[in-house]
Every structure is written in structure tokens, then in C-alpha cells.
């Protein structure tokens, strides 16, 4: 039995169907990130786990116990809010200790618990201040302290970093991850930022329009997306999606895309079985920018590199990498190359395609065309 089990959960607000049957289960110690664009229902789902929104249909199990109708304060959960939701009339110590006070924990014990958490979060010197006197990052820590002090079974985070500036956000992200590793707590975390999702999660649930698109480890979601939406949403710069056609060459399917006045032919390595049925039909192929690079940077050992000469349209150095824009299948695509690769717009250059990383989508259903589940891609979509 999994630790948190979300079983076919629906949410309706009057006529609007906000969540359309969500199935997720995670184990104790997992860091589940719910990610998706605004309005996808991720915050609603979190509020339902917290007990702040009712469940229209379905079942919510925490540690084997059905918590559908349990009051938020009796679910053994703690939540960190986007606005931090600190109580402005109380001191930091009062804020952190409020939950314990409401649970009638004696003053001395309470003080000890508050001190312990304050030390963990390095806010000991702030305990007597009011939230109004704190900076954004400090408030964030206090909000986390308020959740940590109760030592609950499950932590819920609702976009906790979105009110911080970019630099602080990265620092706090690291701290949350360290905290999770040190304390081994189970966390459900909501964000619309796919980088946060990738860096923090042990499991990612990508949501759109009230439906779960994919549940899996960050790497599985990144390398093996279920559909075009997941492919485009995860990763920055996002996956190159190229219009192509599957044709048969020497008895095996290959993908052909228009590259200016010529045709680029890419051999197919993955999902070959499924793609046999797609010969002479249009598809969309997906290749991450790092799967298209300069021949010297490519990993030739696996033997899955296919080189081609294409015109360079634009060069974008970021310092760490050099992004080279070319056009393929009628769209601009991004290739990630070694910085310092001597390329100028207008020239032709050799691009190395790592076809083992190529994924293929059905342009009609936007779903993935893939072989029957194999062991190495396991962990992709889990239905309870």
C-alpha cells in the first residue's frame, strides 16, 4: 500500500469539472511535484489533500487511512502557502508555535520545539520580530518553520517560491531539497515552474486541464514524455518539435523532414515496432536541444549519431553553451553546441543528431507513438 494514494479524485465547482479523475500514489519519503500551467487544477488538488476543498468524487488515503472527511487539523499535514500566510499580529515564535498552542502543547515543550526548528532554519535571531519586519526570504523560512515544528506525516507546499526574486528562489530551492534529504519527509509540492519541478522532485505529476498527463521520475518525464504537451512543457529551452514523415527504407522505418531545399533522413532507433505501422504518414518528432549538437561534442560510442549539414540561422551564446538555430520541417529548431564553436549565421554547418533520444508523436491525438512498455522506460505512467 502506498503512503499517499489519490484514487480517481474528481472536483466539480457547480457545472465546471476542475479535476477529471486523478490517480497518483507515492511512497513515504517521496517528493511529489505537481506541475502544470495555471488553471490545470494542481492547486485545487493540493487544497483537497489539505482538506481545504471538498472532494466531489474519489478517495484520498494517507498511510492507509481514508481522509476524505477528516478536518484539515486532524489529517496530520502541514502546509506552506504562496503568500506565506503568516499571522501579522504575532511574533515569529508565536507564528511557529501557534499550531502547537492550538493542540494544547505545554508552554515549555512548545518553546523547545520552536527553538529546535528555528535553529534548523537559522532564524533564531528573528524569533521576537513581527512578520512585517522580515524580508521575503525570512518570511519563507518562518512559513516553513511553522510547518516543520509539528512534525507531520505529509508536507504540502503551494508555490512557495513564486514570491521571491530569482536569486533567492534558487537558494531556497536548494535549501528545501537539503531539508527533504535530511529529514526524509514526504512532500507534495505545487509549482508552475518546470525547472523547480525537475530539480526538486523524486516524482513529477504533469497536469493540464484537470487531467494527469504523466507521472514519473523527473528523468522519465524529461526523456520519455507521454505526449506533445509534456514534451513542450518540460525542459528549457523546450524540446524541438519537427514535422516529419515516416517512410520505409530497406525494410525499416525512417523519419524524413524538410530542411530547406533538401530532405533530412533520420534513422529510427526507439519505438521501431510501433512506427512500422506509421509508414507514409505524417508525424511530429521531438528532439531535445542537447540531442542536436556539433559532431565533436556528440557521443559517438553508442553509434546512434546521425550527421547532416544544415544552414545556421542564428547563434545565441549563453556562456555555458552555444545555442544554434536552424530550420527543419518548416520550424526553427535549437541545437546545443560547445561554446566557442566557430559558427556564423548564413554558413552551413554539420549537426550531429542523437537519434536514440528521438521521440515521435501522433499529430492528431498529440500522443506518443511508442512500443509496448519495456523495462528501461518503466516508471512512466502509473495507474493505481
Amino acid at each position, binding site marked *: 500500500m502506498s503512503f499517499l494514494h489519490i484514487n480517481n479524485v474528481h472536483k466539480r465547482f457547480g457545472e465546471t469539472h476542475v479535476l477529471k479523475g486523478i490517480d497518483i500514489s507515492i511512497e513515504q519519503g517521496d517528493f511529489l511535484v505537481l506541475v502544470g500551467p495555471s488553471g490545470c487544477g494542481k492547486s485545487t488538488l493540493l487544497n483537497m489533500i489539505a482538506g*481545504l476543498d471538498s472532494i466531489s468524487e474519489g478517495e484520498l488515503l494517507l498511510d492507509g487511512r481514508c481522509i476524505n472527511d477528516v478536518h484539515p*487539523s486532524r489529517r496530520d499535514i502541514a502546509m506552506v502557502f504562496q503568500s506565506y500566510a503568516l499571522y501579522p499580529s504575532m511574533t515569529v515564535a508565536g507564528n511557529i508555535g501557534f499550531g502547537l498552542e492550538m493542540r494544547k502543547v505545554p508552554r515549555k515543550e512548545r518553546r523547545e520545539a520552536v527553538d529546535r526548528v528555528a535553529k534548523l532554519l537559522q532564524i533564531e535571531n528573528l524569533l521576537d520580530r513581527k512578520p512585517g519586519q522580515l524580508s521575503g526570504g525570512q518570511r519563507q523560512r518562518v512559513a516553513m518553520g511553522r510547518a516543520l515544528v509539528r512534525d507531520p506525516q505529509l508536507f504540502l507546499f503551494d508555490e512557495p517560491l513564486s514570491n521571491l526574486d530569482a536569486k533567492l528562489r534558487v537558494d531556497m530551492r536548494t535549501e528545501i531539497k537539503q531539508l527533504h534529504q535530511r529529514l526524509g519527509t514526504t512532500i507534495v509540492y505545487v509549482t508552475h515552474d518546470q525547472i523547480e519541478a525537475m530539480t526538486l522532485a523524486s516524482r513529477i505529476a504533469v497536469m493540464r486541464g484537470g487531467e494527469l498527463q504523466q507521472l514519473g521520475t523527473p528523468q522519465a518525464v524529461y526523456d520519455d514524455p507521454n505526449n506533445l504537451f509534456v514534451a513542450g512543457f518540460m525542459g528549457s529551452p523546450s524540446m524541438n518539435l519537427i514535422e516529419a514523415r515516416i517512410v520505409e527504407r530497406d525494410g525499416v522505418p525512417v523519419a524524413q523532414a524538410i530542411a530547406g531545399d533538401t530532405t533530412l533522413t533520420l534513422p529510427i532507433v526507439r519505438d521501431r515496432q510501433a512506427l512500422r505501422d506509421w509508414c507514409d504518414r505524417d508525424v511530429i518528432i521531438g528532439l531535445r536541444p542537447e540531442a542536436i549538437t556539433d559532431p565533436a561534442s556528440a557521443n559517438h560510442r553508442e553509434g546512434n549519431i546521425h550527421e547532416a549539414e544544415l544552414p545556421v540561422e542564428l547563434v545565441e551564446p549563453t556562456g555555458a553553451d552555444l545555442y544554434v538555430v536552424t530550420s527543419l520541417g518548416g520550424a526553427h529548431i535549437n541545437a546545443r553546441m560547445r561554446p566557442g564553436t566557430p559558427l556564423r549565421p548564413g554558413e552551413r554547418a554539420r549537426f550531429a543528431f542523437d537519434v536514440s533520444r528521438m521521440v515521435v508523436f501522433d499529430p492528431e491525438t498529440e500522443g506518443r507513438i511508442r512500443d509496448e512498455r519495456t523495462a528501461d522506460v518503466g516508471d512512466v505512467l502509473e495507474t493505481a
Partner: protein
Amino acid sequence: MSNASPDRDGGARERLQRWLPKLVLSPSCVLVLFFVYGFIAWTSYISFSDSGMMPDYTWVGLHQWSRLWTSWTWGIALHNIWVFGLLYIVSCIVLGLVLAILLDQRIRAEGVLRTIYLYPMALSFIVTGTAWQWFLNPGLGLEKTMHDLGWQSFSFNWLIDSNMAIYTVVIAAVWQATGFVMAMFLAGLRGIDGEMIKAAQIDGAPAWKIYARIIIPQLRPVFMSAVVVLAHLAIKSFDLIVAMTGGGPGNATAVPATFMYSYAFSRNEMGIAAASAVFMLAVIAALIIPYLYSELREPRS
């Protein structure tokens, strides 16, 4: 076409634009200066003069002020304003807050109820006073209705009881202002972050503790505004008392405003009346000026 160079033309228009607002505002400025601040100064002077029925500009120093403070009626008026003001402010705030909290529970007919509670504020004090006078008059209103319905022993004659009459004024005034105070608190409640209440729920606080510990402490600015608005309404209360009790029975419901009116216009003691008026102004100023100062200073910090 005019031959004036565009330069000079533009200069004239610019000058007009610069002066126009000042020109438009200056008549009202002059009027306010004269009729408000001018008469405040004049009244202050009169309070140090030997004026009786007509203004008399002979300087008598603090004579009128000492007569004011030794006057028996002034003592009653001050006592009444204390009782009235305190009960009025406290009742309005307590009732207004309770109504606002009840209205804030996302009930269906909120818009209608809010309007109903707010309506008394739209009435003038004269109408309120007259209506409540009829309602509480033992021979006309509540008591007579109860008697007609067969409850012969029912008695509610506070309006004509000199010990209780001031409380009837409190009832009418509270009825009128509670809705307004409720609206202020409701606005304050709506400004509170909903996530904070969710956090408190998860922390395990029962509803009354969420209000007592988290929400009400955050309404402090609303309490401040309510006290200041109500306090100056209390000190200004004149028409309500004139319409309801006329300051009676006897002097039982006299307040500084009715005292000032009767000394100025019926007792021909303009000097004492001026002194009482200046005193009231000073009390209101002592309330309002710090409040305005703190309100207007806020955006800078």
C-alpha cells in the same frame, strides 16, 4: 489670422494653464477662509468678550470661561456626553463587528442585507430622532402597541424618565450608525488574506480563535477609524437630541451642543455659548488632527 508669433502665443497659453486652476479654486478658498476659519476666530474672540444677547467686543478675559465651568447645566451636558459617547461608540463597534462577521460567512442574500443595515445612515438625524421619538413615546409607540395587543403590564417609558432618557438617544444613534460601522469592518474583513485563515485551520484553531487571535488584531486600523468617526459624530450630536427629546425632560439629555444652542439663542448668553463652542472644537480637533496626521503620513513610510 492672428499675427502673434507662435512663441508668444504658446507662452500666453502656458501662463493661462498655470494660473487657471488657481483662479478656479480661489473663490472657494476665500469663502472657506472667511466663513469657516474667520468665524472660528470670531467665535474664539467672543468667548473672551462681554457678549450677551448681541456681540459686545469688550475684552473680559476668562470671565465667560469660568462662568461656563461653574454652570450646573454644563456639568450635566458634560456628564451626558460622556455616557452617550462611551455607550454609543462601544455599542456601535461591538454590534457593527458582530454584524460584519456574520455577513462575512458567504451568505446568499448578503447584498440585500448589507443595504438594509446601511440604510439608516442615509436618513438625517432629524428623521431618525423623530421616528424614534414616536416609537418610544409611551402614548403612541411601542408601549401603546403592546397594551393594544393585550399586554397591559408592559411598560417602557425611558423617553420621559429623566434618569433613562439619555439611553433612548443612545439606542436611536446606535441604530443609525451601526450599519456604517459594519460596512467599515466588512471592508476590513474582506482585505484579510484567505490563505492565513486556511493556515490557521490547518494549525487547528477553532473559528472563534481564528477571529480572536488572527483576524480581529489585524482590524486595528478599522477600530481606529471607527472610534474617530463615531467620537466626532457623538460630540456633534445635536439634531438627534433636539428632534428626540429637545434636551429634556428638563435638562436630562442636554449635551454640549444643545447647551451651546440654548445659551446662544434662547438665554442670550453669547459669551458662554462661544466658550462652550470653542471647547467642543478643541476636543474634536484633539481627536481628528492626530488621526489625520497618522493617516496622511502613512503613504510615505
